[in-house]
């Protein structure tokens, strides 16, 4: 288990080892740019204007060592030091969060008493660091200076969906799951209900979740804010002779990146971390009773509304209570790539693939409406 900490330290070392040469390279690149009279409001006076920088150079930003690991470096290279500083400060906050948890974990050998406060800190810190770095590189590489506003098909009040998940749970001789559900966003609340069933019909999972927005951020996005969620799920597993009742609590943050730079208004990042408490009711000839244990939930999602009809996303999920649970392990979850597309007004299709050798594939059809 300690190898994870070594990897983390190695990542920090790499970050420190590359930021210096990256900065030197970036300053040389900027020195060769021509000045423009039109300034972006986030640019400082001595930096070249964004609109004057040749767009065909931006693709080189991810190639510069350290740009992927240092939030803000990509925008600094692009000549946006103010935005770079915002990313960098947020990134350092993430690192500090992860280090706080990680150091305590490491020093105590992951003692029971410190697990609950520290592991969520590590998870939150690392996922936010990664998502900020990714958003920095994507924003600096692909976006020009002007914010774009789309009348989005993607964030309407009522969503109803059907998902098909192709996943091989060979211990149950089952290959696929159907999931139906919906989410309703109203005022500062959200309710989510899902029902998942495998194709053989002997694993049935109900899930309910209620979220309350406790704080707004910049209100540039109607779902933006800090939420607290509580939920209950029940699973009947006739194959494995048990049922499970789970209560979960989680904190979730949805942030539109216009907070860091107005040209990033089409990027949303969400992070969540939480705890789930399971009550497993075994029904075997030798034991008919309930045992309990706990688990983590967490992850992040970084989505980009490219157009009214197209929204890719990359994310990381650590979840144990559904068909996705086969993919996660310990502290570590699994990355996914998602593509949502609007087929017609209010109808979306999305597909999600999970990385590695998971062989999991998800296809969803969703319909959304907005309240008048």
């Amino acid at each position, binding site marked *: 288990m300690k190898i994870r900490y070594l990897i983390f330290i190695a990542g920090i070392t790499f970050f420190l080892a590359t930021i210096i040469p990256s900065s030197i390279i970036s300053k040389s690149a900027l020195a060769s740019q021509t000045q423009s009279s039109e300034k972006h409001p986030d640019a400082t006076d001595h930096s070249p204007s964004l609109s004057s920088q040749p767009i065909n150079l931006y693709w080189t930003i991810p190639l510069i060592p350290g740009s992927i690991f240092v939030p803000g470096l990509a925008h600094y290279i692009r000549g946006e030091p103010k935005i770079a500083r915002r990313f960098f400060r947020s990134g350092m906050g993430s690192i500090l969060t992860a280090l706080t948890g990680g150091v305590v974990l490491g020093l105590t050998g992951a003692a029971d008493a410190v697990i609950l406060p520290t592991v969520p800190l590590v998870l939150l810190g690392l996922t936010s660091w990664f998502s900020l770095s990714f958003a920095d590189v994507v924003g600096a590489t692909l976006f020009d200076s002007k914010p774009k506003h789309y009348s989005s098909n993607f964030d309407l009040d009522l969503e109803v969906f059907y998902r098909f998940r192709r996943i091989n749970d060979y211990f149950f001789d089952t290959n696929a799951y159907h999931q139906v559900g919906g989410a309703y966003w109203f005022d500062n609340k959200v309710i989510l209900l899902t029902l998942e069933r495998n194709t053989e019909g002997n694993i049935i999972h109900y899930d309910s979740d209620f979220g309350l927005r406790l704080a707004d951020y910049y209100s540039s996005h109607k779902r933006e804010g800090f939420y607290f969620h509580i939920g209950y799920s029940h699973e009947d597993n006739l194959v494995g002779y*048990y049922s499970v009742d789970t209560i979960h609590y989680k904190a979730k943050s949805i942030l539109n990146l216009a907070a860091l730079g107005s040209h990033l208004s089409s990027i949303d990042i969400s992070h969540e971390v939480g705890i789930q408490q399971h009550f497993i009711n075994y029904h075997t000839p030798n034991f008919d009773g309930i045992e309990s244990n706990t688990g983590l939930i967490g992850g992040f999602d970084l989505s980009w509304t490219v157009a009214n009809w197209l929204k890719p996303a990359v994310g990381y999920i650590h979840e144990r209570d559904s068909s996705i649970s086969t993919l996660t392990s310990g502290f570590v979850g699994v990355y996914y790539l998602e593509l949502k597309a609007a087929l017609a007004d209010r109808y979306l299709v999305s597909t999600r693939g999970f990385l590695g050798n998971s062989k999991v594939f998800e296809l969803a059809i969703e319909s959304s409406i907005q309240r008048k």
Partner: protein
Amino acid sequence: MVLTACTDLKDKRASKDVVIGQLENQYINFKTEQGILNIVYADQNMIELRAGSPEYAAKLTNKTSNDLSIKFVVSNILAGHKIQIDGTEVNELEQMDKKKSWELVVLANATVSIETVQNQTEAFGFLAFGDIQNGIEDFDDVVNVLNQQDQVDFILFLGDLTMNSDSEEFQKIEEAFAKISLPIYSTPGNHDVRDADRYHAYFGKASYSWTYKGVRFTSVDSASWTLSKSTWEQYKSWLQQAKDQTHIVFSHIAPTEPFGLRGGHWRSRREANAFIAESSRWHVDAMFYGHLHTLDIYSLAGIPVYLSGGGGAFQEYFDGIERHFLKVGVNPEKSDISVSIIRVD
């Protein structure tokens, strides 16, 4: 940080398990039929094996048209280990610590059966612990306390012998284990399978099941935080075979741990719960796990679970225990299992 790539490694280990203990060359065909034998070396004059179980049965076929005189060497054996060749007990040629050799004369194109003299169903004891890793530097302390234990027949090692499964680490483990007077039967840990071939070369199978004095012992390879499909199928068949025996299951990573936030359990909660339910359904009497560097005693679907990772690897603090191992007494006629904790520090 994508560990899903590990899901194929578990399948490779399961495939490797099938061929361990089997050998065919131009001179002989050797096939292990019961128990675990890991082939260390073989030529036309000698075959050296490491026992992965207290008892075993095998067949050796002479493929040549000449009679062969073969030195049969087995290490990691129980005290008082004796074998029969074609049903007749034979005296050993040489005897060293935990190793014996015999002279086998195999006629041209003939097959001999080799099997250990069976032990009677009776009460016995064994030791169990896991997670040595960086603790190998101070392992002599643990060896001294292990060697002081009496009325125990062997040691179950619960995984994570090494940090990175490199050859130098395995060599140190071999040297340390040579100082222990008891044979050691191991299950692989997540650190041991970074080079799984090396683990197999030293310790043989990852998933297996055998009977000793009327008690069934089953190891399942959970080193990838999940079981392979073939291991699952094997496990279900072993459960059914052992339904009337006292059955002890051991592995490295517990399907679920008592305090679930340390990541010390399987990647799929559904798989974990299914494993527990199946084990309970078929009367598993006790489970032993490692991976967490502490001691936890709890139950899963009524099955007592002993999680002991006190072999010396980075210890968990504030848990009231440091290096330790478990001393287990088993009475198969009464299906009685008693466990006591032996502290090294």
